[in-house]
């Protein structure tokens, strides 16, 4: 038996029984973000310069080589995965004219911290922007016991705002 029992319990908490739940389907989120009809996706290629800039300014390591987004006029939608403690949390973010809105947790896979899905938390990001130091221009109140999940959503919003600046939408 030894440690097996204990580790099984640990796994039960951290792995197997993680409260994985899909709250909003991607298609539903995009339908809400673009009521006039879902636009065709586009991609932003993560060049070496962009990766280095993200590392320098956001202290963020973009793992993928391209990031998909949807846009109509100046409105863009981003669906990003951010690791909470061990597993990715899927977050949807709309960015328009450098301001975030409609931040939603689409899928949560961690065992704790699911309270971030509620509007009392996500609504704090409405109209948030990056300031001169590439930080969010507003203090985001945390949730006791959900610090890592709160940090993940905050990171995802910062990344979406950062990436938006490097799309043709922002520069066009």
């Amino acid at each position, binding site marked *: 038996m030894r440690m097996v029992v*204990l580790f099984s319990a640990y796994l039960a908490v951290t792995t197997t029984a993680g409260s994985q739940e899909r709250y909003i*389907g991607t*298609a539903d989120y995009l339908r809400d973000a673009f009521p006039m009809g879902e636009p065709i996706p586009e991609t932003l290629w993560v060049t070496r310069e962009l990766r280095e800039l993200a590392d320098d300014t956001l202290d963020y390591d973009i793992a*993928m080589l391209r990031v998909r987004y949807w846009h109509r006029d100046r409105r863009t939608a981003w669906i990003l995965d951010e690791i909470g403690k*061990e597993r*990715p949390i899927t977050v949807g973010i709309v960015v328009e004219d450098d301001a975030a809105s409609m931040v939603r947790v689409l899928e949560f896979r961690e065992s704790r911290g699911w309270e971030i899905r509620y509007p009392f938390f996500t609504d704090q990001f409405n109209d948030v922007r990056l300031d001169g130091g590439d930080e969010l221009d507003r203090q985001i109140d945390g949730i006791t016991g959900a610090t890592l999940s709160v940090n993940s959503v905050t990171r995802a919003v910062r990344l979406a705002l950062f990436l938006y600046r490097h799309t043709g939408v922002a520069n066009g």
Partner: protein
Amino acid sequence: MAENRSEQSASQRWLSRWHRWLGIGSIFFILLLSVTGIALNHSDDMNLDGRYLRSPWLLEWYGIEVPAPDSSFVAAGHRVTLIGERLYYDDSELMNGLSRLVGSVSTPSFVAIATSTDLLLVTPGGALVERVDTQTFLPAGVTAIGVAGATLVLRSGDELYRTDEDLLAFSPCHALDVGEIQWSAPSTISPAELTVLQQLYRGRGLSLERLLLDLHSGKIFVRVGPVLMDAVGVTLIVLSFLGLSMWYRRNGKNGKNGDSSRRS
């Protein structure tokens, strides 16, 4: 008077002896609790949950076992294997938190790996290009992945879907439209390859943070550990009271003497 003083002295010696031995006996545990406590307080700064232990006897002690591979496929000479929820591309971990590997195929640009809910695009060198949530455009989960010339094809239920040139959009299609489809088929992983992946899997099974937490709480010694740590806690409380008691007796005695000396 002399008898009373002798009794006091005996009880002081008794307290002192117990205080000394309990103190000496607790040193190891106090150090253990202090060091692990300080480390855990700075877990994020020290990236304790990102450091993994590879000691065979520790992994054995924790009973970390490697599940049998879910499935394994080969595309463009690269083996893709899912063990537990960890996806391996050749002998490096590509992603965690996946389930039900469906297959992998090679396109002119990328190696495409499908699970029932995701499509991963990877460079032949193993760099992740993109993770595509197939639930966005498919009504059901992916059941097969194939390639027809340069076109990537997914099967979902009874329907087939093909990608555009950039692997950005998927649209329904008929088998006749895309030509002959080569569907990805499972490939048996060799014992040598499996051993390498099992070692990788076990190496990511136990974080330093978990070990320190279990050392701090005593849970590393299963049932005995927490009881032992409770006993250490009680011992520290007893030590505090013994120390206070000794201080009070000594101080009280000195105070009385001081008072009497001043009076005389």
